[in-house]
């Protein structure tokens, strides 16, 4: 086990961080597959409304590779297919069959069979069973290219985001599935890296997982982000094509292969100011947001996904596939009287321009901009927070001038989208969005077409 070297991290503390307690929620009436969380995938529907589906029934496929399937998270009938802008499928809502005793079993794949299985056959199996889209390949986080072995798979148990699920919660009693999942990835990649933040190491050791953890990292966000970890341990150009997977999906994959049954529940971390206690909830994957966090107050919004990377989601939808945390925050337009002049005892800031920076107490946060967008003043605060040593302001300017080559030379593809540059920007420029767009544009131009 190695210690990764120190990176720049987020230092402030938020109120409403989920506790490590777990509450099991009842089965909701509907669950949904929300495939939009996978970028670049061109969806093609395989079911229609009122079709009966089982857990593991393919619901959509990727037009680019029809073998890549997204499967149903529950047994029941397809109630609605919700489409967003440009008729992109947003949600496939399944009304659960409450009487069903769960899905039919399939033949398990114990470790011995796995060992003897050729790589391509395993990939076929992963695609059929709907796990392939959960493995994502750097730098674009697209569905991986199955042709060549991955140089590395980075499994990060916790990215450092205070609102992400606690690994000591979701790994409890799941050690066997976790090991089985790792064994599958070891077949696919030359190297599998498992990284945990320092503060979870002792509890993971008690669970007997210490020997699987190859690296420990800092506790703060984004030191545990897979992209940041890859940036620290990559040795050559080839390592850039490494992959990553969320640990809960890894466990689910291991569970299916070792027992022959789909794991349809996930541990969701709910934080901020929900109606319930901010804590972990064990619920069906793709549950409705309201089911996860109860009713939310007028004027508040829900960020699904990480606090820095997630998006503000309407409350009447289902949890995005692969997203495991939800944060309820105040989201109404505000203004503050002579806002620039107050000492700011309770104002959260990564800068030292408020009195609050003298203390380390957790502070409230809301989903508003706290200022107006302005031109970049070249202050350089964005690069002081970048965990992968980028200079976001220069990449932003290169993209503004349409110079993709310059942006690439400055390393834009190393950007992990942690969002800290945008967070700290005093001019309120969407640096992370600009860099994400640069990566996306490049990927669409060069790799996909």
């Amino acid at each position, binding site marked *: 086990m190695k210690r990764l070297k120190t990176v720049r991290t987020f230092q402030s503390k938020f109120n409403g961080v989920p506790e490590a307690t777990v509450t099991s929620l009842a089965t909701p009436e509907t669950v949904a597959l929300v495939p939009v969380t996978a970028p670049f995938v061109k969806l093609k529907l395989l079911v229609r409304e009122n079709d009966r589906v089982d857990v593991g029934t393919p619901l959509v496929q990727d037009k680019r590779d029809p073998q890549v399937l997204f499967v149903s998270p529950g047994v029941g009938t397809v109630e609605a297919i919700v489409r967003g802008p440009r008729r992109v499928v947003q949600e496939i809502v399944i009304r659960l069959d409450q009487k069903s005793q769960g899905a039919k079993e399939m033949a398990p794949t114990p470790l011995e069979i796995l060992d003897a299985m050729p790589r391509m056959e395993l990939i076929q199996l992963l695609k059929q069973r709907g796990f392939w889209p959960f493995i994502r390949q750097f730098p674009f986080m697209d569905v991986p290219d199955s042709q060549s072995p991955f140089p590395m798979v980075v499994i990060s148990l916790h990215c450092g985001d205070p609102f992400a699920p606690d690994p000591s919660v979701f790994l409890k009693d799941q050690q066997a599935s976790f090991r089985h999942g790792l064994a599958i990835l070891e077949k696919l990649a030359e190297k599998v890296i498992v990284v945990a933040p320092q503060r979870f190491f002792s509890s993971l050791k008690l669970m007997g997982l210490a020997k699987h953890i190859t690296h420990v990292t800092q506790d703060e966000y984004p030191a545990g982000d897979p992209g940041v970890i890859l940036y620290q341990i990559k040795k050559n150009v080839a390592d850039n094509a490494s992959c990553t997977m969320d640990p809960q999906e890894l466990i689910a994959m291991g569970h299916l292969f070792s027992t022959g049954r789909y794991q349809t529940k996930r541990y969701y971390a709910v934080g901020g100011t929900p109606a319930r206690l901010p804590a972990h909830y064990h619920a069906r994957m793709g549950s409705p947001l309201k089911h996860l966090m109860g009713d939310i107050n007028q004027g508040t919004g829900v960020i699904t996904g990480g606090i820095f990377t997630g998006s503000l989601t309407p409350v009447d939808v289902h949890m995005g596939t692969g997203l495991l945390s939800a944060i309820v925050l105040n989201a109404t337009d505000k203004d*503050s009287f002579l806002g620039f002049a107050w000492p700011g005892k309770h104002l959260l800031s990564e800068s030292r*321009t408020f009195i609050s920076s003298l203390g380390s107490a957790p502070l409230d946060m809301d*989903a508003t901009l*706290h200022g107006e967008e302005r031109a970049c*003043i070249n202050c350089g605060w964005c690069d002081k927070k970048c965990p992968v*040593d980028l200079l976001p302001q220069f990449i932003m300017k290169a993209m503004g001038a349409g110079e993709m080559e310059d942006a690439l030379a400055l390393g834009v593809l190393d950007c992990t989208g942690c969002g800290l540059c945008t*967070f700290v920007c005093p001019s309120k420029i969407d640096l992370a969005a600009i860099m994400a767009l640069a990566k996306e544009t490049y990927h669409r131009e060069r790799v996909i077409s």
Partner: protein
Amino acid sequence: MNPLKIIFKKTDPYFQPEGPFSRFKGIYSATRTFFFVPSPVTKTAPHVRDHIDLKRFMSLVIFALLPVTLFGMFNVGYQYHGGGASVLEMFTTGAAHVLPIILVSYGVGFFWEILFATVRGHEVTEGLLITGLLFPLTLPPTIPLWQVALGISFGVVMGKEVFGGTGRNLLNPALTARAFVFFSYPVSMSGNAVWRLTAPGVDAMSGATALSLGGTGGDIQEMIFNAGFSLDRLFVGLHPGSIGETSAFLCFVGAIFLMVIRVASFRIILGGIVGVITTALIFRVLPGPTDTWFSAGPLYHLFSGGFALGISFMATDPVSAPGTDSGRWIYGFLIGFFTVLLRSVNPAYVEGVMLSILFMNVFSPLIDHVTLKITAARRIPNV
């Protein structure tokens, strides 16, 4: 509800695109956002944002400049009365002369800023808050107000707005304004008579600054000392000079505050100080004229003239400085180097700071270009 807010709420429709005063939306929203800093719901991830915004960023520089400004007012009065009056009297005399200069600078500056914002349909930005205060601080107290107006007009329009406004300017607007006045009206900006305010009818007292000494044989350090400019006096700042430049102490206090809250880059400030010290030391050791500033040594160079003000508040303007950390060290160092060089070898321009900062402003894109290439080459390529 705040009564001001009610007023804004009532007047708001008049300034909307369909309202009768839609042309004046710029000045309206500038006023409104000054009183009520807006905080709309975020549209892209991350949906949580830092509380810092440009208004606070700029206000903190103003805050750091306040002691310098207030002392400048006091010192103008002190020089006027020759130190022979009560503190309050000296301060009010000084303030009566300095405040009009500041007001003209802000007034004319905002006129241009708002005119450009209105014509272009963009927001009035906060950059002028600093430019409008920094520019008067670099002027002698005897400056005619119409020259202040002309100077700030040139600085704001040619130094900033023609490039697109705050954040897009190549040169520091306050120094551009000063350079304009300096070269257009040298009589009001140089010589020995302009640095001290005198009562009308009284013969101008010699208001020589320390930098104008030299070239008359003997040792420069002794000459400066004998002229009444001991190091501690230069440090405290009770001597004739531009309004805001005299107190090196208060300028460095402001600099330390800005470095601690990280609004100003410590790399530029320390780089500049290191640049002055090394260059001045080398020049003192080198064989050369001992009766000019060439041999004045590092401390006199640090505490005299406008170096302290310039390196703390002008050179640290992030817009016109390089954006890379290594670039900032180089930039700061070279400002220090050129300041000493200009003072030493070119007696025509005794004040080297303004020119060396403007000169390095021009070079900062080049510094960025080179340092970016080096930084990019160190990465493991990912294309």
